[in-house]
C-alpha cells in the first residue's frame, strides 16, 4: 500500500496504466487517446488473412453476462479471440444465479478456473465496480455495460468512429438524441466527448427522458429536435427501449417518432457532411427512419467494426496493466523480505 492508494482510481495501476476498465469518469485525455490510437492499429488486424495477433495467447477471458446482449457479447468474444485468448461466455441470468447461487459464489468459481479477465454486463449500476473491488487482485475487470451507469467500451467506439470520420474533436458539434435518462451510452459519450475536448455537446430529448443535473457534463439541453440538430457534425441517436413506453414517460412510439425521430428531412438541418450514429439495435420507424439508418451519412455498421478494435485495445491494455501491477507488487514484497 502506498499513501496514494486512497486517491488512485480503482481502474489504474500504480504507474497510471489501465488495470480495470469500468467507467470513463476520471480517465485522462491522454489515456483515452492512447486507447483510440491502439484501437486504430488493431483495425488493420481485421483486414488480414489471419485475423489474429498473439498478445493474449494462453490467457482466459470470461464474458459474464448477467443481462442479455448479442452485439456487445459477440464483439467482446471476437476481440478476445483476435487477441488469441481463450474465451468462455456465461449467460448467468439463465444459469447458476437462477438456481440460487450468489454473485460472489459465481465469481469465486470463475476465479478457481484461473480466468485472467472478466467482462461483466449487469443490469445494476455499479456492478462492475463492485466486482472489481472484490475480485482476486490478479483478475482484470472490464465493464460491458452496467445499468444506467456506464458503457465505456461503447463510449470509446463512438469516439473512434467520430475521430475516424471527423479527424478530431476540437471543432465539433455533437448531438445525442433520445432517451438520455436510461442511457449508459449517453453518459459515457458525454464524459468522453468532454474529456477529449469537444466544445459543443448537445443533448436532445423530452423532459421526461432527460435526467436532472446534466449541466455537470458540460452539455447544452434541447427539447426541440430541429433546434438542437441545426449545424451539428455528428448525430448520435439512442435506442428507445420499448418497455419504457408502459412507464408513463412517453405517450406512444408514434408520438416519440413524430417529435424526436430522425428523418431525412430533419437530418438536413445538420451539416451536409454530418454523420449518423446509433449504438444498436435500431428500432426502425421509432427513433430513426430506415432511409437514414441505411443512408450515405450513416456510420452505424462502421461502429460495429470499430467496436471490435476498441475492445481489443481495452482488453490488451488492461491485461498489460494488470500484469505490470502484479510485477510491482511482487518486487515490493521481495524488497520487504530483504
Amino acid at each position, binding site marked *: 500500500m502506498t499513501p496514494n492508494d486512497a486517491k488512485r482510481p480503482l481502474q489504474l495501476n500504480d504507474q497510471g496504466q489501465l488495470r480495470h476498465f469500468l467507467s470513463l469518469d476520471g480517465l485522462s485525455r491522454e489515456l483515452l487517446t492512447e486507447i483510440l490510437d*491502439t484501437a486504430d*492499429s488493431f483495425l488493420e488486424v481485421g483486414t*488480414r488473412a489471419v485475423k489474429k495477433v498473439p498478445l493474449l495467447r494462453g490467457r482466459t477471458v470470461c464474458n459474464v453476462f448477467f443481462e442479455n446482449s448479442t452485439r456487445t457479447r459477440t464483439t467482446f468474444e471476437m476481440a478476445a479471440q483476435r487477441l488469441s485468448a481463450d474465451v468462455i461466455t456465461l449467460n448467468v441470468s439463465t444459469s447458476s444465479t437462477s438456481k440460487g447461487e450468489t454473485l460472489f459464489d459465481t465469481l469465486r468459481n470463475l476465479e478457481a478456473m484461473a480466468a485472467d479477465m472478466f467482462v461483466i454486463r449487469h443490469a445494476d449500476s455499479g456492478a462492475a465496480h463492485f466486482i472489481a473491488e472484490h475480485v482476486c487482485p490478479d483478475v482484470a475487470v472490464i465493464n460491458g455495460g452496467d445499468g444506467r451507469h456506464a458503457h465505456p467500451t461503447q463510449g470509446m467506439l463512438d469516439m473512434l468512429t467520430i475521430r475516424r470520420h471527423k479527424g478530431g474533436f476540437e471543432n465539433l458539434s455533437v448531438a445525442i438524441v433520445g432517451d438520455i435518462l436510461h442511457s449508459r451510452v449517453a453518459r459515457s459519450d458525454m464524459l468522453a466527448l468532454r474529456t477529449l475536448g469537444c466544445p459543443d455537446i448537445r443533448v436532445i430529448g423530452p423532459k421526461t427522458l432527460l435526467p436532472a443535473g446534466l449541466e455537470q457534463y458540460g452539455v447544452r439541453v434541447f427539447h426541440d429536435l430541429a433546434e438542437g440538430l441545426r449545424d451539428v457534425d455528428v448525430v448520435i441517436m439512442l435506442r428507445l427501449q420499448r418497455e419504457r413506453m408502459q412507464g408513463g414517460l412517453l405517450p406512444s412510439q408514434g408520438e416519440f417518432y413524430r417529435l424526436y425521430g430522425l428523418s431525412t428531412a430533419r437530418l438536413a438541418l445538420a451539416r451536409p457532411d454530418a454523420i449518423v450514429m446509433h449504438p444498436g439495435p435500431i428500432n426502425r420507424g421509432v427513433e430513426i427512419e430506415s432511409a437514414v439508418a441505411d443512408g450515405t451519412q450513416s456510420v452505424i455498421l462502421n461502429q460495429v467494426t470499430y467496436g471490435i478494435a476498441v475492445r481489443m485495445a481495452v482488453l490488451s*491494455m488492461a491485461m498489460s496493466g494488470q500484469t505490470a501491477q502484479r510485477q510491482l507488487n511482487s518486487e515490493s514484497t521481495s524488497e520487504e523480505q530483504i
Partner: protein
Amino acid sequence: MTLPDPAALLPRMAAELKRHLQTHRIDTPRFVGIHTGGVWVAQALLAALGSEEPLGMLDVSFYRDDFTQSGLHPQVRPSALPFEVEGQHLVLVDDVLMTGRTVRAALNELFDYGRPASVTLVCLLDLDARELPIRPDVVGQTLSLAPDERVKLLGPAPLALERQVLAPL
C-alpha cells in the same frame, strides 16, 4: 570504439544483397522494413539498388514475447504490406539485430499474412548478442557492446548511429 557511418555500410550491403538474390535466383524480391529503423534502412537499400518497388512496413508490437512485461507501445503503427505475401520472396530489413526476438516476432507476423517462399534477413548492425538461432544473410557490421550499452539508429535522412548507455538498476 567508434560507431560506423551507415552511409558507408549501405553500398556494400546493397552489393551483397544483389549477389545473394542472384545466387538464390530471386528475381522479384518484396522488401519489408521493421518499424522504424528497419524501414529507413530498407528505403536506403532500395534507393541504392535503383529499385522503385513498393516497401512493406511491419510493426511487430502485437507479436512481441515481452508484451506482458513491457506493455503495448501507445503509438503502434499499423503494419502495411502493399503486396501479397503468399509465395513471395521477401527481404526483411531491420536496423539492429540484438537478441533476435524482434525478427522472430516479425516472422510470426509475416506468416499471418501468408506463407512466403523465402525470407532473406538484412540488418545494418549485428550486436552479436542473440538469444535465438536467427542470423542475418546480409549485415553491415558486427559489433560487440558492453552489457549496459545499446545502439539507436537516427533518421531517416541522414542515417546515423548513436550509442546509448542504460541507466543502472
